[in-house]
């Protein structure tokens, strides 16, 4: 059994789709689509320009991964390994932000400076 050969037309089609998405994301960057309010603390204001730009980037990535990198025709094991990579990237970003964004939630105890008068007595 031979590996899957992607038709030439599909490759060229993907190429033009990627070019079109590049043009689209560049054009949208010059239009203010505004903000979306979620009402949830930390992520209340969602800038829609950022959402659209990243959504288009993800779409482009999927086209490259599935067709140019033949993952659509790869084994489930390969797909699982790729998903695990993105899962760990998600953990890296999510846990880093969970620390960074919540630092002001609880009152921080007075720093060591408050003890200086006692140290130098």
């Amino acid at each position, binding site marked *: *059994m031979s590996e899957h050969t*992607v038709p030439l037309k599909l490759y060229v089609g993907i190429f033009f789709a990627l070019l079109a998405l*590049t043009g689209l994301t560049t054009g949208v960057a010059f239009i*203010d689509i505004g903000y979306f309010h979620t009402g949830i603390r930390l992520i209340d204001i969602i800038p829609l*320009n950022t959402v659209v730009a990243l959504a288009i*980037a993800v779409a482009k990535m999927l086209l490259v*991964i599935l067709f140019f990198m033949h993952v659509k025709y*790869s084994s489930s094991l390969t797909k699982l*390994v790729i998903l695990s990579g993105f899962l760990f990237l998600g953990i890296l970003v999510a846990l880093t932000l969970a620390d*960074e964004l919540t630092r002001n939630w609880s009152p921080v105890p007075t720093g060591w400076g408050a003890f200086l008068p006692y140290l130098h007595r």
Partner: protein
Amino acid sequence: MPEEAVADMAAHTAHPPGFAHQFENMEQQREAGSLGMWVFLVTEIMFFGGLFASYIVYRSLYLASFETGSRLLDVRFGAINTAVLIGSSLTMALAIRSAQVGKRQAQVIFLVLTMILGAAFLFLKFNFEWRHDYMEHLVPGFGFVIKPEWGAAGGHVPMFFCFYFFMTGLHALHMIIGFGVLSVLAVMAHRGRFTPEYHTPLEVSGLYWHFVDIVWIFLFPLLYLIGGRYAMGGGH
């Protein structure tokens, strides 16, 4: 000599070119090759992921500075380079396809085209874009000048440019390495080393090249686009 050993030797002499004996068949060998490359690419995702994660953190801390910095970049270079890199991904995919259908000359042509497009990307980036940034005093550590018109956001604009140069620099380093790999592949292809049955070096190098393309697909919006370009009033 036992009969089995003779049959075994016959099987060995008859195996297709490039077939390694530890594998059951060519199918399994191919899958092991691309799986191994993907494991490496997952480590690369985490390698770039550290930069992406810190970009996200510092952007959330100094949003105004990052938006100011982003608007100072010339979006035309970013967009043209995105198109150039997508084109190089197409020619890379077509080089592999040429090997799959057994066209030797086409492999060499598409590999050389991929190298030309990769070199064009680096030429635009280094010779025009980075030089332009240097002339505008936008390189941290090399005469960076915080301009008064940036206002209160100005203090952390060098932070954005640190990310810009480290991220595009690491990406460019990957492209230079890829360029070297491609030049070796072009010679191998010219010598007829790749057949429809065996072209694993071509396949896994293609995965690497496409991965570098994907990194740029994310760097382009993160660095050039999501800085509120609509607020600039007119073109750049």
